[in-house]
């Protein structure tokens, strides 16, 4: 009707454009961030690649004095602690999720869910503090006991401080438990009631139903949840840094001090003085970044497929 747009109309139009621009800018910025991270880490670590090339990935000597850097001990440490923690925590995570989905009434499940979110919300450094002063002494006692059991003098004599791979694995298992349990629970809750009731009506016990109806139904999303938890464990920094012992050699047993990619950076970055040392630590960060992006995107895709199915 109005041939001439009124002033308030024009103002609204400006606001509309600004609004759209803000949305697009923020969205583009978010995606660009990933590229920016990749570029920045890639560029600042180039002197490490110039010195060691691909052999950085499989050389096992990490020596700041001779300036020889190979990431294999950290890669091994990361994989051992990550998969070890996942192995220990998965049965419990499944148990907790099944308990909350199928056994507990609302009066029990609501507070338990709240406690899970509480445990999941505790900062990494708090777990580290607890791990260092409570868990590590226990692990140390276990090492002494185990050393006597297998009659290993070396173990009793030297490696009994408690810090090392085992302490890191146990602490990580506790830390990812609330995360994986709540992700698995989410997928269990969408199993259609008709399917469960159908099985129960055929005379299946509750566990028969869980084992043969529910778990197969959520198989894909459970895998997705576990992959996401693995991603968490691989990148977890402070807690691991505080209990793993900053060992630079290739670990030979679970009791050895070691390093993960993340803990090596946290432990050594401020002490690193030479450019190659710094670049090599950034290179560890680049490896960790690429692994975490791949794992997270893969897990999301698996999860999405699980839901669609």
């Amino acid at each position, binding site marked *: 009707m109005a041939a001439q747009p009124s002033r308030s109309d024009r103002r609204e139009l400006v606001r509309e454009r600004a*609004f759209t621009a803000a*949305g697009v800018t923020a969205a583009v910025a978010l995606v660009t961030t990933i590229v920016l991270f990749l570029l920045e*880490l890639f560029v600042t670590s180039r002197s490490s690649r110039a010195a060691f090339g691909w052999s950085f990935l499989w050389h096992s000597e990490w020596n700041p004095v001779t300036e020889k850097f190979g990431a294999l001990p950290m890669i091994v440490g990361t994989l051992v602690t990550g998969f070890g923690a996942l192995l220990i925590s998965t049965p419990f995570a499944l148990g907790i999720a099944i*308990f909350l989905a199928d056994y507990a009434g609302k009066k029990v499940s609501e507070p338990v869910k709240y406690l899970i979110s*509480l445990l999941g919300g505790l900062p*990494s*450094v708090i777990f580290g503090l607890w791990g260092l*002063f409570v868990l590590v002494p226990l692990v140390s006692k276990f090492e002494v006991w185990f050393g006597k059991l297998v009659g290993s003098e070396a173990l009793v004599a030297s490696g009994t401080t408690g810090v090392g791979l085992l302490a890191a694995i146990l602490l990580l298992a506790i830390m990812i438990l609330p995360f994986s349990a709540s992700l698995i629970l989410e997928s269990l809750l969408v199993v259609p009631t008709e399917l469960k009731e159908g099985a129960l009506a055929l005379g299946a016990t509750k566990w028969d139903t869980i084992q043969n109806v529910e778990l197969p139904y959520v198989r894909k999303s459970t895998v997705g949840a576990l992959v996401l938890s693995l991603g968490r464990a691989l990148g977890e*920094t402070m807690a691991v840094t505080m209990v793993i012992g900053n060992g630079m050699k290739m670990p030979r047993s679970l009791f050895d001090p070691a390093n993960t990619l993340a803990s090596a950076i946290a432990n050594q970055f401020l002490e690193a003085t030479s450019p190659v040392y710094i670049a090599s630590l950034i290179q560890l960060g680049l490896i960790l970044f690429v692994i975490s992006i791949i794992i997270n995107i893969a897990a999301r895709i698996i999860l999405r497929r699980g839901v669609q199915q």
Partner: protein
Amino acid sequence: MTGRKIKNSVMGVLVAASAVLLIAVLAVIVWHIFISGVKYLNWNFFTKAPTPMGESGGGVFNAIVGTFLITLVAAAIGTPFGMFAGIYVAEHRGLRFADIVRLGADALQGVPSIVIGIFGYTFLVARFRSYSALSASVALAFMFVPTTARVTEEVLNLVPSGLKEAAYALGARRSSVVWNVGIKTAAAGITSGLLTSMARIAGETAPLLFTAFGSRYVEWNMLRPMSALPLQIYIYASSPYPALQQQAWSAAFVLVLLILLLQYGAKHLIARVLRVKA
């Protein structure tokens, strides 16, 4: 009893036991923080900066100030980006780029905190040749944006489409629909999400190690090195002095209290949203 039924009972006990175990572990951790934390707590702990090496007493006022400043500035930087990215994704559902943005936010949420820290160092600290609280805030903002974006999107998706359609039918533009209908309806939910994200970044240590760096003094200038509670806990816990280790527990107690407070606020708001919806 048949084998099936025995198995049924055994598994029932086992799943309940795993839930009990989780609660037990949480209880043990919280108990340790409480018992060891309150021992050293006194008024000075909240109001004094650390004393010089070797002298007793002192507190973590410097770290408390740092945690508040660094967290608030990070949230101030991250909120507009996170919220608008969330609005974009919610308003463009089905669009391929919106999917990519959502996936990008998920991927960013999974980036290890130490990588954020090292990025903060190379991107800001190395460039400007100085450790600063501001570089820590920027690093934390990179963790704040993706969580905020996802929460905003999720909460906006909860707004009944009937409400929005009614506004469109009255001739409202998209910006005014999103703002006056979407954001206002979802305000409590979004605020709750912001508080949860703040609780998360307030406890982060790794992004601060090479950016905020830490300081023994009460520092208000964002361009200078600054301490923060998580950082102080890490430094004290790794120190060989029992007096400092004790302070680490007390600082942990204060940090957990702060985080619980933020989370309680968030939960309270969520409860209100759900009540309004029902």
